[in-house]
C-alpha cells in the first residue's frame, strides 16, 4: 500500500484529473479558446482537437431515431457468407450516407452472418426503410427476335441480359445536359464495365449498319441497349405474356420495387435508347424524362450499388426525439439526486472521511464521463443506469474501508495506523467483490442482448474507475489530511472513542 501513497501515483492521479476535466469541459474549452459566449449555439461544436471529436455519444433511445434488424436471405451461391454480409453492409452504408445521419451504425450480426443491425439517429422508420430497402440494380439488355412477343417497348423482340449491370458502374451523377433543358444521369463505368460497354455498342452498330438518324432500317431494335431496374430472368421468361410485359414495361416505380413481394409486378423500364455510335472510354449518359429529383434518385441508387442479398425486416424500433430528450432529463435528474443523497449521507455518517470520499466520488464521476467521451461509449438509458449503479459500488469500497477503520480504532490503533490497516485489510474484499462484478459485466457484454450490453459496458467502466477512486484517491486524501493533527480528532473522524494519538 506504500506504493499507492507515493508521489508518482499522486502525480498520475492529478494528471488524470486535469485530463478528465479538460475532456468533460471540452465544449467550454473550445468556446473560451475561440472567444465564443459560454452559452447558446456557436459554430464548430462538438469541438475537434486534432482528429478527436469530443462529445457524449447518445444511443437511439436518448437521441431519437430508428433501429432495424434485418435478416439476410437468398445468399448468392459459392461466395463466402462473411464477404456477402460485409458487401451488404457497405451498400447500406452508402445508401444511408445520403440521409445525412450523424454516425449511422451498421453492424453485422447473427450466428451465420445472416443479420444486419442498423441504427440511425433522427430518422423515421419509414424514411430509413425506404432508403435502405430501395432496389436499384441497373440491368442492361439487348434485344433478340421473338415473334411471339406482342407487347412491350419492342414488339417482336424480347430482352436478353448482356452481363452489364449497375455493379459495373464506378459512379453516376445527375446533371443538366448540354442543351441546358433536360436532366440526365452521367455514368462512368469500371474498367471491366467500360470494356463490356464498348463491345456491346460496337456489336449494336454492326447489327444494323447505317446512320440511325437518316436510314429507317438502321433504327432497328437490335441497335438498342435498354436499361431496366432490377429486371430478372423470370421477367424475361414471361415476356410472351402481354399482360405481364405491359406491367414490367411501365416506367420504373421505386416505391413499388422497394416493397415488392414475389407476386407483385412493378414497372421496371428505365430507357430504351438507340446506340448512335460505338462508345469507348467508359462513360455514358442515360437520358429520359427525368426531373431533377428522379435523376438524383437514380444517380444515388446507382452509386450505392445493388444489394447482393434480400433484406427482410425482423424488427423496427422508432423513438421520437422528444421522448429521448425527456429520458435524458429524467435520468440526469435521478443521477444527480442520487449522487447528492449519497454525498450528504457520507458526510453526516463518516464526517471528514465521508467528505474526502465524496471528493473522490466527484473525481470518479469526472473520470468516467471523460472515458465515455474518449472511448467513445454510446450511452443508452440502460447505460446511464449502469453508471448510476456504479456510483453505489464506488461508495461501497469506501464504506468497507471506513467501517474497517472504525474497528481498527476501537481495537486501539492510532488514527494514522488505523487508516493504513483499514485500507490494507479491506482490500481483499473490495478486490474479490469487484472482480465478480467485472466478470458478470464481461459475460453480459458478450452474450447479452444489445440493451444489456450498453449496461454492462458502463457498469464495467464504472467499477474499474471506482476501484481507483476508492483505493487510490480516498486513501491519498486521507493520508494527506492525517498530516494535519487537528483533523485527527475522533469527532471529526466519525469514531465514538479512540485512544489519544
Amino acid at each position, binding site marked *: 500500500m506504500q506504493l499507492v501513497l507515493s508521489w508518482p501515483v499522486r502525480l498520475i492521479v492529478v494528471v488524470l484529473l486535469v485530463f478528465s476535466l479538460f475532456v468533460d469541459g471540452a465544449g467550454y474549452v473550445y468556446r473560451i479558446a475561440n472567444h465564443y459566449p459560454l452559452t447558446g449555439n456557436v459554430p464548430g461544436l462538438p469541438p475537434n482537437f486534432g482528429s478527436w471529436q469530443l462529445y457524449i455519444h447518445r444511443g437511439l433511445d436518448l437521441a431519437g431515431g430508428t433501429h432495424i434488424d434485418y435478416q439476410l436471405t437468398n445468399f448468392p451461391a459459392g461466395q463466402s457468407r462473411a464477404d456477402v454480409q460485409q458487401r451488404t453492409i457497405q451498400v447500406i452504408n452508402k445508401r444511408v450516407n445520403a440521409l445525412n445521419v450523424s454516425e449511422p451504425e451498421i453492424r453485422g450480426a447473427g450466428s451465420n452472418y445472416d443479420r444486419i443491425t442498423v441504427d440511425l439517429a433522427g430518422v423515421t422508420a419509414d424514411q430509413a426503410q425506404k432508403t435502405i430497402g430501395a432496389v436499384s440494380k441497373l440491368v442492361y439488355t439487348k434485344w433478340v427476335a421473338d415473334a411471339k412477343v406482342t407487347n412491350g417497348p419492342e414488339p417482336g423482340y424480347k430482352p436478353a441480359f448482356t452481363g452489364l449491370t449497375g455493379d459495373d458502374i464506378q459512379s453516376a451523377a445527375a446533371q443538366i445536359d448540354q442543351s441546358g433543358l433536360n436532366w440526365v444521369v452521367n455514368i462512368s463505368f469500371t474498367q471491366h464495365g467500360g470494356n463490356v460497354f464498348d463491345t456491346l455498342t460496337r456489336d449494336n452498330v454492326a447489327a444494323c449498319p447505317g446512320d440511325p438518324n437518316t436510314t429507317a432500317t438502321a433504327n432497328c431494335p437490335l441497335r438498342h441497349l435498354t436499361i431496366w431496374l432490377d429486371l430478372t430472368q423470370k421477367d424475361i421468361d414471361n415476356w410472351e405474356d402481354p399482360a405481364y410485359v405491359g406491367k414490367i414495361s411501365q416506367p420504373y416505380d421505386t416505391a413499388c420495387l422497394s416493397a415488392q413481394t414475389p407476386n407483385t409486378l412493378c414497372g421496371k423500364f428505365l430507357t430504351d435508347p438507340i446506340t448512335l455510335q460505338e462508345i469507348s472510354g467508359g462513360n455514358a449518359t442515360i437520358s429520359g424524362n427525368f426531373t431533377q429529383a428522379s435523376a438524383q434518385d437514380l444517380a444515388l441508387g446507382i452509386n450505392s450499388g445493388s444489394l447482393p442479398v434480400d433484406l427482410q425486416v425482423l*424488427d423496427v424500433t422508432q423513438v421520437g426525439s422528444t421522448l429521448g430528450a425527456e429520458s435524458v432529463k429524467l435520468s440526469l435528474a435521478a443521477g444527480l439526486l442520487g449522487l447528492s*443523497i449519497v454525498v450528504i449521507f457520507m458526510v453526516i455518517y463518516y464526517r471528514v472521511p465521508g467528505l474526502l470520499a465524496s471528493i473522490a466520488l466527484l473525481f470518479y464521476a469526472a473520470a468516467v464521463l471523460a472515458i465515455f467521451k474518449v472511448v467513445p461509449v454510446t450511452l443508452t438509458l440502460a447505460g446511464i443506469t449502469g453508471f448510476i449503479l456504479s456510483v453505489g459500488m464506488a461508495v461501497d469500497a469506501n464504506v468497507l474501508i471506513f*467501517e474497517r477503520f472504525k474497528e481498527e480504532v476501537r481495537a486501539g490503533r492510532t488514527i494514522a495506523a488505523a487508516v493504513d490497516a483499514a485500507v490494507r485489510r479491506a482490500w*481483499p474484499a473490495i478486490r474479490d*467483490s469487484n472482480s465478480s462484478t467485472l466478470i458478470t459485466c464481461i459475460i*453480459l457484454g458478450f452474450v447479452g*442482448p444489445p440493451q444489456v450490453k450498453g449496461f454492462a459496458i458502463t457498469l464495467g467502466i464504472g467499477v474499474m474507475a471506482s476501484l481507483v477512486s476508492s483505493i487510490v484517491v480516498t486513501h491519498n486524501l486521507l493520508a494527506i489530511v492525517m498530516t494535519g493533527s487537528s483533523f485527527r480528532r475522533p469527532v471529526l473522524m466519525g469514531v465514538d472513542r479512540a485512544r489519544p494519538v
Partner: protein
Amino acid sequence: MPDLSDVSATEQTADIVPEVKPKEEPVPEPRPEPKVRRLNIIGRRNVFFAVSLLIIIPGIISMVSRGFLLGIDFAGGTEFTVTFAGNPSVAQVESAVAAENINGSVIQTGGSGYIIRALPLTPAQQKVVEDDLTRRVGPMTVQQVLEVGGTIAGETIEFALLAVVLASVAILFLLAIRFRNVPGGWRAGFQFGGSALAALLHDVFLLTGIFSIMGKVLGWRIGEIDSLFVTAVLTVVGFSVHDTIVVFDRVRENLRVSQRLSFEQVVNLSIMQTAARSVITSFTVVLVLAAILIAGGATLKGFALALLIGIVSGTYSSIFNAAPLLVVWRRLQPLR
C-alpha cells in the same frame, strides 16, 4: 472424533455462541475493548431459511402455473407510444383501436398519453393504423414505435438465460479459486462458492417470483418482464455476490486470526462485523434507486422497483442465508 461430535450437536447451535445478549443491541458501543454486538444468526438459521422459502415458494408456484406478463421485446408485436392532442377518454381510444382489428390493447400512461400494443405490423400497416387513429380520435404525436418479430423475441430470452447461467458458473469458479486458500483447500473453496451461488439463486428466484405474482396474479403492469428486467436481475446477481463476498472474506480472515473459535462462531462473528457495512451500502444504493423510482421516467420505474427488491433481498440473503448455508454445508461435509 471432534468432527462427529460436531455433527451430532446440530440441534444445539443456539449454545455455540455463549454470550448471547439480544437486549444489549440498542446500547451504545461497549468500551473500551473491541466488542461486536452479537446476535446469534447462525443459531436461528432455520427461521431465516423459512422466511426466505415463505416468499420464494409462492413466487415459484406463480412462475410455473401463471408465467410472466411479457413486455413487447419478449412477446413480439407492435407497440405505439402516442400522445393525443385532445383529451380522449380511454374508452374512445379503445374503441378506435378495436376497430382496427389488430388484436390491440390500450394502456393509459397518464393524461393523454397511451401505449397501444398490437400484432406485428409492417410499416405500411403501421401507417394505416396511425392515420386511422388520427381520424377517429384526433391529432396525435407518435413518440415511439416498437416492432419486434418473434425471432428476436425468442433470442432475447435465450441470451438472457444464457447470460444468467454463465454468470453463475463464472462466479462459482471465481469464488472457489479465491477461497481455496482457506483450510480445506479446493473443497472448502467450492463450499464458499456454492453457498454464494445458492444465495444468488435465492435472489434471482425471489425477484422473478415476485414479478410473476405482480404481473400475473395481481395484474399490475409494473410486473412486466422485458430486457431491462433482465438487466435488473443481472445487477442483483452482481450485488448479491458482492455482499456475500464481503462476509466470506471476513470469514476467511477470521479463520486465520481466531484459531480458537469454532467454525460457527467464526461465521457468526464475521456476519456481525460486516453487517453494518452491508446495511449501509445497500441503504445508499436503495436511496439512489428510490430517487430513480420517484423522479425517473415511466420506463425506468419497473426497473428501479426490480433493483430495489433485488438489492434488499441480496443483502438479506448474504447475511441470513449465504453464511448460515456455509455452516450447514460444513456440517454435512466436514473438512480438515
